[in-house]
């Protein structure tokens, strides 16, 4: 007869922790903590869900503490487990919050997480070729792109900064379509490579006075703190939507994303200068609002992770609220139509990559109206 042992109560705690840390699927860890009282106590006491989340997202090492908001029920929660104490309650709270976070982060539903464009390091022919052109896929509306200013030195980089839909998002990949001159030369103004940074603003209202498409580049180092830097990805000189999948999903804490475009490859025939152009940007991932929100504690740069227990998970399709009053009606209309289109496509598609491939083929189509000035 096979020997069956409740190993948790028999082995060294260190070994049992090591065993349970091999459970990478959050639902496995939930099931394990529902086996018996001692198992549940063990998972809570050893902070196993916190460890799991930290392994998935090292960015969480900056969490100072967690909070639960809108916890319903005036009565004390059912005391499952052994002794009740302040420390235990703190561990139990960590357990609940990180278990919910693990679930939300591993959900398969993905969407475009860009809320608005903040600024570009330089812009040619502002506002015609401003960064806000990158928010809409070219073939849906009209051929359009953001263009940097020209440089004689091809090593001069550019940056594009975007605000994401919430201050707490999981980002898996970024898609970028370089700008292409469609009238004459068919030159593609890609960059040599790209790199991504994510972070938050330094102070609470640093973006308050910024207008959409402002040609004045903000001094990024003064305004933002970057908590994640991706590896450098080579970019192809092709006028199609290129996929840059991050090595691991990343938690963007603070909702700010920067695209660094490194190295210019294309010289303009007319003025002989090197430019970089981008026609479309898509940041793919999942927003964790309103279930989760963060409060960034300055100057330590750590943050408080808050779980709103009555907040429903944001599930597409659902139209985003218009937060930025700077957006003109025209842009709002375009944005609205874009979202409708995007949402209709995404329904029924489990994988947004299918959607992206449709756009790629769309890029090759001739446009009825092409307005290109360089």
């Amino acid at each position, binding site marked *: 007869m*096979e*020997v*069956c*042992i*409740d*190993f948790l109560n*028999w*082995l*060294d705690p260190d*070994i049992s922790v*090591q*065993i*349970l840390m*091999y*459970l990478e*699927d*959050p*639902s*496995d860890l*939930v*099931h*394990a*903590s*529902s*086996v*018996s*009282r001692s*198992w*549940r106590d063990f998972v809570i006491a050893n902070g196993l869900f916190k460890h799991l989340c930290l392994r998935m997202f090292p960015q969480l090492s900056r969490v100072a503490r967690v909070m639960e908001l809108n916890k319903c029920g005036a009565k004390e*929660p*059912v005391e*499952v487990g052994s002794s009740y104490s302040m420390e235990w309650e703190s561990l139990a709270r960590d357990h*609940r919050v990180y*278990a919910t976070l693990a*679930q939300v982060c591993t959900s398969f539903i993905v969407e475009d997480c860009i809320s608005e464009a903040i600024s570009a390091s330089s812009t040619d022919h502002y506002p015609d070729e401003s960064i806000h052109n990158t928010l809409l896929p070219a073939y849906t509306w009209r051929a359009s792109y953001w263009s940097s200013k020209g440089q004689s030195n091809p090593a001069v980089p550019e940056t594009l900064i975007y605000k994401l839909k919430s201050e707490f998002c999981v980002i898996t990949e970024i898609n970028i379509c370089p700008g292409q001159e469609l009238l004459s030369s068919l030159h593609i103004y890609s960059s040599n490579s790209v790199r991504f940074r994510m972070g938050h603003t330094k102070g609470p209202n640093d973006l308050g006075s910024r207008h959409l498409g402002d040609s004045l580049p903000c001094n990024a180092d003064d305004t933002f703190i970057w908590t994640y830097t991706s590896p450098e990805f080579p970019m192809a000189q092709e006028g199609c939507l290129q996929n840059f999948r991050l090595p691991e999903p990343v938690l963007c804490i603070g909702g700010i994303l920067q695209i660094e475009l490194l190295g210019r490859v294309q010289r303009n025939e007319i003025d002989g200068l090197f430019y970089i152009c981008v026609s479309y940007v898509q940041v793919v991932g999942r927003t964790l609002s309103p279930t989760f929100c963060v409060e960034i504690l300055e100057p330590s740069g750590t943050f408080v992770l808050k779980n709103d227990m009555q907040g429903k998970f944001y599930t597409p399709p659902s139209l985003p609220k218009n937060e930025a009053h700077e957006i003109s009606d025209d842009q709002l209309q375009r944005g609205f139509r874009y979202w409708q289109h995007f949402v209709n496509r995404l329904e029924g598609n489990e994988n947004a990559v299918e959607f992206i491939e449709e756009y790629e083929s769309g890029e090759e189509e001739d446009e009825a109206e092409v307005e290109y000035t360089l």
Partner: protein
Amino acid sequence: MALELKSSDNKIFEVEELVAVQSETIKSLVEDGCADNVIPLPNVDSKTLELVLDWCKNHVDMKLDEEKLKEYEDKFIEVDQAVLYDLLLAANYLNIKDLLNRACQKVADMLKGKTPEQIRETLNIVNDFSPEEEEEIRKENLWAFEE
């Protein structure tokens, strides 16, 4: 150079030093100069020690062939629960990191994809939650219990 190890049931195993020092515990003894005589291992029986030494020997022999080694490890760890726990305890006592990791991973594999009830059955654990407590836990983690 050869070392002599004695299991809990007094069986002597002669082993190459290179193989035996896969165990950090034995390695320390050798470095401290305490390995001249027979090394007693009161926490490991002969059956388990034989398996452990087989693991160590193969890790020396197949060190450069990752694929072959993985194939060996996968086959090696296909044992029943009792032997698995014995291996785990021995690996911990003898401080053989890769064996300990593999054994822990195997135990975890026993839990993966199982409901709490299935885990209880596998490990012969009694459910000591009250119905109210169970309900509370289910509500907390509805998502994990959706089938």
